[in-house]
């Protein structure tokens, strides 16, 4: 959870003179203004009055037909009646919470989890239990033991929240085996899974994996969005869920905002009518793949050997882990003096973990700024690694370790022994 001091710190990352690798913004600069104008003309010409009017809560049928196409492209076949149009993918998280949660209910999420989901979970007073991840995504064996443990204390999660593809913020993708395991666990224990899949189509390498929903449509609530394949400005996402849940979500949505923007829905429908929607996604893939590669190269060049990071096959984020003695919230304060920003890892946990981790976004700024931003962050990380080394007498990894410490007096030897004990992490905010 974020402390108010951290919120204030994050506000500074939005300053104009800061290279922000903190946001999660898609690049909207290459969408042709002419196409935008033409689409809006079409909307005005064909549907002016209706676009300016309220629409059905569940969304316009013509937009839902577009959603069916997008889901088909990811290997899922659904009917328009099974789709609920929402105001961004974020609203799906909110509506699922609204529909399922009572204060104190358990929600299972990954550790780290999508930082934007945490305030939603917290506002419904959920008790969030986070399951660690490795390069294959959520550790399902830990999930099972956690579920057993919860069951012994008479608690049953209302749902399991996961981002299987190109995880935000962790940058990893859940393996096929884990996906099968997860839906098996969900089925056996009759637990709902909220599959959040905003980035599935943004794959830069490797073969697509089946979504959880395509493996099991009985216990999986599926969420996605137009934000990453077209525009976050249209604020349109959707949910597909087992019908009793979908109906409740629809009632919840009615209470929240009656309906999502009709103008946006007509705009997106017109966009799908105007030509193959996949072309723009392909153009984004090119841009993002290059930016990801530039960031990976820059990390290898500028970050010290003590740091590690993920190699995402898609999506928008890289997750980097610093040595345990670096607190990335403090590091951000230092980085802001160099006019560069990232998201400190604590923002992705509810329990104070993540103190040495950071999320780096590669979609929001161009290649030169990514290089320069990573160079600056690398510099402040090296500075802190060097300082820690000076304080403890332990050489940074990049240097050749001295075989014997004859240069050090006995007093410092003693000091080194004490000071190299693993620093206890403080729980905060």
């Amino acid at each position, binding site marked *: 959870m974020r402390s108010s001091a951290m919120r204030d710190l994050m506000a*500074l990352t939005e300053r104009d003179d800061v290279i922000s690798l903190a946001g999660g913004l898609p690049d909207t600069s290459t969408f042709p203004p002419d196409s935008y104008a033409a689409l809006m003309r079409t909307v005005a010409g064909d549907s002016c009055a209706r676009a300016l009017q309220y629409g059905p809560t569940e969304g316009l049928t013509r937009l839902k037909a577009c959603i069916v196409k997008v889901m088909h492209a990811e290997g899922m076949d659904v009917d328009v009646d099974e789709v609920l149009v929402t105001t961004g993918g974020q609203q799906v998280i909110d509506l699922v919470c609204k529909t399922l949660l009572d204060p104190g209910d358990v929600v299972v999420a990954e550790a780290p989890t999508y930082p934007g989901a945490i305030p939603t979970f917290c506002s419904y007073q959920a008790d969030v239990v986070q399951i660690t991840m490795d390069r294959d995504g959520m550790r399902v064996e830990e999930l099972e033991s956690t579920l057993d443990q919860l069951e012994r204390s008479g608690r049953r999660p209302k749902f399991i929240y996961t981002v299987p593809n190109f995880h935000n913020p962790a940058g990893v993708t859940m393996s096929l085996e884990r996906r099968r395991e997860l839906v098996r666990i969900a089925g056996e224990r009759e637990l709902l899974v909220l599959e959040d899949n905003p980035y599935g189509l943004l794959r830069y390498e490797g073969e697509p994996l089946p979504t959880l929903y395509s493996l099991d449509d009985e216990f999986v609530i599926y969420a996605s969005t137009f934000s990453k394949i077209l525009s976050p400005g249209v604020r349109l996402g959707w949910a597909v869920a087992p019908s009793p849940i979908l109906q409740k979500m629809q009632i919840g949505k009615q209470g929240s905002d009656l309906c999502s923007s009709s103008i946006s829905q007509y705009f997106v429908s017109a966009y799908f009518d105007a030509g193959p929607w996949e072309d723009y996604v392909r153009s984004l893939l090119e841009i993002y793949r290059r930016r990801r590669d530039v960031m990976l190269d820059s990390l290898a060049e500028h970050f010290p050997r003590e740091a590690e990071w993920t190699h995402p096959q898609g999506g928008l984020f890289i997750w980097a882990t610093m040595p345990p003695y670096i607190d990335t919230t*403090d*590091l951000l304060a230092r980085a802001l003096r160099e006019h560069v920003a990232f998201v400190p890892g604590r923002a992705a946990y509810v329990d104070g973990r993540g103190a040495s981790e950071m999320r780096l976004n590669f979609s929001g700024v161009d290649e030169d700024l990514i290089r320069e931003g990573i160079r600056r962050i690398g510099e402040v990380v090296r500075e802190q690694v060097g300082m820690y080394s000076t*304080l403890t007498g332990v050489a940074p990894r990049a240097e050749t370790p001295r075989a014997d410490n004859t240069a050090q007096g006995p007093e410092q030897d003693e000091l080194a022994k004490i000071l*190299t*004990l693993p620093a206890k992490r*403080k729980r905060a905010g």
Partner: protein
Amino acid sequence: MSRVAVLKGGRSLERQVSLRSGARVQDALERLGHEVLPIDVGPDLVAQLTTCRPDVAFVALHGRDGEDGTVQELLEVMGIPYTGSGVSACIRAADKVLAKHAMRDRGIPTPDFYAFNETALEALGAAQALPAIEERLQFPIVVKPARQGSALGIKFARTPGDVPAALVAAFSYDRKVLLERYVRGRELAVSILDEHGSPIALPIVEAVPEQEDFYDFEARYEIGRTRFVCPAELDDEVAERASRTALDTYELLGCAGFARVDLMLARDSDALYVLEVNPIPGLTETSLLPQAAEAAGISFDEFVARVLGAVGR
């Protein structure tokens, strides 16, 4: 009625708090009938002040630049009268090391401490002095940047193994850091306001953590995790002593207009220790000084009017 420039925001880590303080001050000034010229402090500060020529500047900045004498120096140069403490008081108060030295020299109690800067670490082998420091201060030790107003960068080291990481964190905020003896006890804030040219202490605010986790320093700054009691429930003698000590510190540093002095009341001995002086404490709805003023029957508008009235006195 005067033309009052309200300086707020800036580039410090406390920018957001300052924007809230500034907005509240603006509202009060308008209600008092003044012409308000809000300025989000940035590279065009001097140009803006030159253009709008205010009669007086209300400095509602916190942290770097605004509270450390930098902006005050510019206002002096431009001949614009301003609220609160002057340049030298701000320099002394914003730097905890300078302030604590001044207190120690004058015999005002402040927790034992040692400070060093990056140069001492890099060029003089200060790391090798850590065991001696730890021996004298005893654990737990509080590690702080010398100049950083909020809770950011403040760490507790419980063992020698915690110290290097705590120092690295503190050095993220400043080139100078201090290691301070931890005083276990009650946290008291004494707000001070000039009244007709002489400072008075307002009712004392006590910060009471909801959970007794004294290591979790950030808790102080999170709504719902700290409860503020005003006036603090203290024996008259203790309250009197705390107010006296705070006023002595205020005068020692040469503060003016208003300020907030933070103290610890030691649990075991009832001794008071001054932690720091904030020359421009928060002025938001939830800030401590406005609460203290309220408890003394001084509304926020009246507080703002008095601070303005004390300018140039």
